[in-house]
């Protein structure tokens, strides 16, 4: 036998202790996905039954996973934040907060999808499997405390999303979206991986905790080119996933082409998971090197705000408009990231907390807005030009009112969660002394208001060439799933706008990062 191999085999390998309660949420979702696949294999002759069983299983899985997340919260409260699995997994407030948002977004994503899949003739259990697997990756992402694990999580949820984007095989746009997302996603993953390699080269570790320790020791002025190049490439990889300008170009095409419930899920959950990694890596592990990366994030934030709002203003397609507005929202969250580590005594609301709160609100707004758009679409993803929304208030008063709420929330109107979210971001920027960023954000919000109000006016304005029979068009009968999902999102947005403090406190508690 090869002597080297012999030596390896004879060494007592230190096996990591399996901390089941911590990975239980991940396992629950993963097992559910596997169960659905098995059901499909076993009950081959009864596809209808399988589909119904898998819907039930998906909800059971999501609820179970949610319960385990709650348990994790309890554990943190009892024993504080810690790491496990040899430091690869972090258990802190953000882990729980991000998992909660991802699970809510997934559950709402499933609810929204049911009616859509029926309408488009896509009722297969695979959709649920992919959605659950993607969510699994995101939950891992929330835990990941090691760059390698971050990468694995990123790939797990991305690969499932590539397929979901192309899920409507008969529609060329959907195929195109999937392919584009895949090619560019692979490209950015490669860059991200290279960034990991460079960072490893510079610090000698992929563990975020150890990198943080390393950076604490090194004089910040003596950072090597290797390290800063690593930062740059990691920013690119994550910037792609959160669709920050200038790495945003895939977003409108993919959001437009994908089936709308997939877009809703992509816009909400994906962004949350990717920002979780962004925050944990940069605001957490690279906190000591913040002088290096903060200017880059500054530029990314301003560019995203600029590109997102200006391009949204000239769109003629509602899905594309919302895609650009999601780029602008990424800009606001990046402001929070930019000021995450600004040390200041007045800093009552850290940028991290503001970002997390914004993510929560944004996920709900995006799900709600895309949910309404999906209900207004006709079979085969037509009817989402802005001109198709003319007089919507007469034809579909309820949907028009809901969309108005979600758009006003995105514009940041008081008494919606969007207002408090924007206010928190600006407040953290002002507290950190970043007045220019705060002003840039406010200006973008003004242009953004035009973007959203334009659609609202289109829905409500009456003009000369109005169709007099508009009011008699049959009302769209919402399916139960969409009805539940839209009720939840709409009421949550109002609750977050009127009684935000409890949630802000939780977001605040969630910012005690392990790596800090």
């Amino acid at each position, binding site marked *: 036998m090869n002597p080297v191999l012999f030596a390896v085999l004879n060494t007592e390998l230190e096996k990591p202790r399996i901390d089941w309660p911590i990975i239980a949420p991940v396992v629950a979702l993963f097992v559910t996905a596997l169960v659905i696949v098995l059901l499909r294999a076993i009950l081959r002759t009864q596809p209808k039954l399988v589909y119904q069983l898998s819907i039930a299983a998906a909800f059971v899985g999501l609820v179970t996973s949610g319960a385990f997340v709650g348990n994790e919260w309890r554990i943190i409260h009892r024993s504080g934040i810690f790491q496990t699995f040899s430091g690869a997994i972090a258990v802190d407030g953000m882990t729980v907060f991000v998992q909660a948002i991802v699970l809510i977004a997934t559950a709402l994503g499933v609810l929204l999808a049911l009616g859509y899949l029926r309408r488009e003739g896509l009722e297969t259990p695979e959709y649920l499997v992919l959605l659950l697997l993607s969510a699994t990756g995101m939950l891992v992402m929330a835990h990941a405390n090691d760059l390698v694990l971050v990468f694995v999580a990123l790939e797990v949820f991305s690969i499932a999303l590539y397929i979901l984007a192309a899920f409507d095989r008969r529609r060329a746009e959907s195929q195109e979206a999937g*392919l*584009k997302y895949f*090619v*560019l996603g692979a*490209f*950015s993953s490669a*860059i991200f991986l290279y960034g990991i390699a460079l960072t490893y080269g510079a610090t000698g570790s992929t563990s975020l905790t150890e990198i943080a320790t390393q950076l604490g020791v090194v004089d910040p*002025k*003596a*950072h*090597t*080119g290797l*390290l*800063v*190049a690593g*930062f*740059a*490439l990691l*920013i*690119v990889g994550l*910037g*792609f996933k959160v669709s920050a300008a*200038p*790495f945003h*170009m*895939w977003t*409108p*095409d993919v959001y437009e082409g994908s089936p709308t419930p997939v877009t809703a899920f992509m816009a909400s959950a994906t962004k949350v998971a990717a920002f979780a990694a962004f925050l944990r890596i940069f605001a957490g592990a690279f906190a000591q090197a913040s*002088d*290096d990366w903060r*200017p*880059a994030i500054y530029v990314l934030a301003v560019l995203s705000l*600029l*590109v997102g709002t*200006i*391009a949204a*203003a*000239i769109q003629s397609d509602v899905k594309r408009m919302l895609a650009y507005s999601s780029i602008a929202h990424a800009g606001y969250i990046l402001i929070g990231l930019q000021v995450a580590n600004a040390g200041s005594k*007045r800093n*009552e*609301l850290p940028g991290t907390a503001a970002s997390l709160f914004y993510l929560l609100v944004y996920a709900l707004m995006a799900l709600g807005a895309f949910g309404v758009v999906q209900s207004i679409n006709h079979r085969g993803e037509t009817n989402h030009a802005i001109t198709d929304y003319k007089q919507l208030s007469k034809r579909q008063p309820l949907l028009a009112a809901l969309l108005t709420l979600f758009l006003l929330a995105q514009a940041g109107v008081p008494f919606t969660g969007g207002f*408090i979210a924007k*206010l928190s971001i600006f*407040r953290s920027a*002002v*507290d950190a002394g970043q007045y220019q960023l705060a002003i840039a954000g406010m200006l973008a919000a003004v242009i953004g208001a035009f973007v959203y109000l334009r659609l609202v006016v289109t829905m409500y304005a009456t003009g000369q060439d109005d169709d007099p029979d508009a009011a008699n068009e049959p009302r769209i009968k919402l399916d139960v799933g969409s009805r539940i999902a839209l009720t939840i999102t709409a009421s949550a947005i109002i609750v977050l706008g*009127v*009684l*935000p*403090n409890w949630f802000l406190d939780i977001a605040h508690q969630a910012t005690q990062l392990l790596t800090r």
Partner: protein
Amino acid sequence: MQRFLDLVWVIPALPALGAVIVLLFGKRIGEPKAGYIATATIGTSFVWSVFTFFALQSQHGEGRHHVYNLWKWFAGTGDFHVNFGFLVDPLSVTMILFVTGIGTLIHLYSVGYMHGDPRYSRFFAYLNLFAASMLVLVLGSSFLMTFMGWEGVGLCSYLLISFWFEKNSAAVAGKKAFVTNRVGDFGFMLGMFLIFSKFGTLDYVRFGSHEALTGVSHTTVTAMALLLFVGAMGKSAQVPLHIWLPDAMEGPTPVSALIHAATMVTAGVFLVSRAHAFFDFSAIGNGIHAGTVVAWVGAITALGAATVAIRQNDIKRVLAYSTLSQLGYMFLACGVGAYTAGLFHMVTHAFFKALLFLGSGSVIHGMHHEQDMRKMGGLRKFMPITGATFIIGWLAIAGVPPFAGFWSKDEILAKAFFSGGAQGKALWAVGMLAALLTAFYMTRQVWMVFFGNERFRDSLADDHGHDGHDDANAQGDPHESPITMTLPLLVLGALSIVGGFLSLPFTKPNLEFLARWLEPSLEGAKDIHPGAFTSGFLLSVGAVVVGIIGIAIGFTVYKRGLPDDGVDPVETKLGPLANVLENAYFFDIGLAKFVSGPATKFATFLAEGIDRKTIDGAVNGVGRTVKEAGDGLRRMQTGLVRNYALGIVAGVAMLIAYMWTRAI
């Protein structure tokens, strides 16, 4: 009992809930029920307000400023917190009592008045929403809470003025009200910004009395006071921001009664009283202060509007100008520091003006939507209850003792007279003149509508049959209104008789109930010493005499109604002045002419000469840049994966290039 002080939030919450229910399910609930639900919510609020009043009355000293924070809405930077807080003190309790009380009556009245309207339930939803906003306005514990209610009532006012938006004039009037109010709102906002920048808070408790303001210069405080007053002028329609109120009569009559006479338009008076510390502390020099401006704006409005009212022929427009004039009295009182007198008049005015408006609504209803007084006359025979109550309202506003209006107007005039110096006497003289005119134009209205010759036959005959009214009395004669409409008239009539007893000008025994009650809210306001009893008595007698002269002139001119040729005698007697008054001093027309004439010319000059090249160029440049940037982005968005990948690579290159500059 004391629990009611903490449960004060229920008062605005009830009508808000009603608004939501009626808005969502109104169509399903159906016609009369939606109205009754709305009435029930505001009625319950009234009962709740009464309990709150007793709860507050059982408190003493500091307990009479009860702040209850429902929750902290959000925190700003620094120490700035925005609380959903309510301030229960004598002032706010007085306000909620009359807002909910009169609100209930007018809701009930609307059940009958809006009968058969296609948007019946929508109307009640707006009305309830208005009540909720108005209650937030008066109960707010900070300027910001008040401002929220302020914007809410503004929105409801807009929605309700243009409620019959199919009529172009109504839609235009709604817009006019909204835009004019915006001007005032800017003043209010700037005032708040200034207050916040100097004091770091907007909570009313911080500004209890003028001693609290020491440390900030008198000039700054004057600026704060005047900015707030600009807000008050917008909402309370004082010259020159009065132009929206007469047009607001395009709204349904209950709206005119509730919003544009009794409650919303008095928000400005409330704001000035709430912020009295700023007015007390302000000083411009030579004894002139912010209050002087308030008093004179009020006096000019009182007199100007009263002169215009004598030449109006629309039954509601007379009352609209009368409302302007009476609001002017209230500001006159606040300006000389007699806040209690102003608030007293606000309450009594709410009683009799709501009565008059509802009475006019009853007339309009009975006359099948005729509003021209020249086509009325002798209506008391057909509408006995409306006629009798309208006459009570007329006696109240004309200042005949012992009706409500006499006591409050008399107090304002007396306080103005004794407020000192020649200025006080001048304000008193203006007030007296306005009182004379008030008595005259109201007498004119009463005789043109309820007495004299019957002039409605022709018009009703043509008009009837296509106004959608299918009542039993189809002869074309006017008819009395249903019980839901007459009951509020009776209640308000009773209140207009006894309302004055809230505060009687006697100190032994002390019968100034309202003044004593409001004292904790108006702490530090200057005391105006009344003169000797005899001089006060003489002033009162003078006021009564003036009122009676006005009535006598009106009676002699109009005792037979209009002459057969239908020409108003006033028109011939006043000569060229008549036209000026009929057109309200050409203020509106002048404004429109100015805006479309010289102002446009000046603007064109600016535009051609200066703007075109520099500013316009810059603005166009920005616009062009945005568009070009957009087009550029569009061009970049080719849809080709290779180009997108290239974009990412470019981003990578830039980031790396930047990062390398940071590395050693």
